[in-house]
């Protein structure tokens, strides 16, 4: 068993209303100094040892991310 993390983020040039909402709300709560926020998704997968990087990449691209508007990164972590 391996643990895999996939982070999916809205592309830089694409509007991110979620991140913007967080960024706007922080000062109202008295938190200053956060200039920019982007919000995306974080997936944690448990995968069998024989699942190779290429398969993981395809899973990320086809299922977890929407390549039209999102970027993603795949990494294996210690479990």
């Amino acid at each position, binding site marked *: 068993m391996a643990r895999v993390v996939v982070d999916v983020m809205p592309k830089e040039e694409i509007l991110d209303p*979620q991140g913007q*909402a967080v960024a706007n*709300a922080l000062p109202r709560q008295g938190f200053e100094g956060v200039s920019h926020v982007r919000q995306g998704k974080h997936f944690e997968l448990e995968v069998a040892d024989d699942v190779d990087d290429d398969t993981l990449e395809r899973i990320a691209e086809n299922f977890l991310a929407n390549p039209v508007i999102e970027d993603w990164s795949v990494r294996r972590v210690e479990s």
Partner: protein
Amino acid sequence: MSAAGASIGVITFPGSLDDGDARRAVRRAGATPVALWHADADLHGVDAVIVPGGFSYGDYLRCGAIAKFAPVMTEVLRAAEHGMPVLGVCNGFQVLCEAGLLPGALTRNAGLHYVCRDQWLRAENTTSVWTTRYEPGAELLIPVKHGEGRYVAEESTLDELEGEGRVLFRYVEDNPNGSSRDIAGVTDARGRVAGLMPHPEHAIDPLTGPTDDGLGMFLSALDTLVPA
């Protein structure tokens, strides 16, 4: 004080949607609705407060997560502590949970879709300020419309709620969102702060809703605010 003398505040956050409906329901029940703005640091002398449905501040982070910090909510928390009746409907329920006035949290529907439909509920608690007009076990038909209405809380909290009779309503027949123990609404220990996902304000007139079964909640509150 006459019924019309009782005033019930309805908060409008940017992104609130059912505030007009809540005010209409208050009027229909015979009280005076007072519009409260999210930036108000003052409840304008109202006798009770309704936190209505909608998507406060867009609800992009988590439903109710931003609204709980609104200046008006500070006042609502203070007033609730002194026993002011507060009702949260849908997004309002989410806000009250986020703000810690009610236990638990509301999460993504188990079916993963927003669901708008007429829903049967059973009145479980008929002693809270907001439910005295209902017979115990009465079944009501009231709309639900939400994408994040699955009520969750720790098992011990759920047991406590059940033990103290603080479950207000339960879904009957089909649970629309996968809520723990079919819970549709809960109240605080004193029975004054209540929250539910279904929309009683959309069931006050069979012309525009499935029934008028929701009107009882507003009438119940008036009974307390304006003792006969």
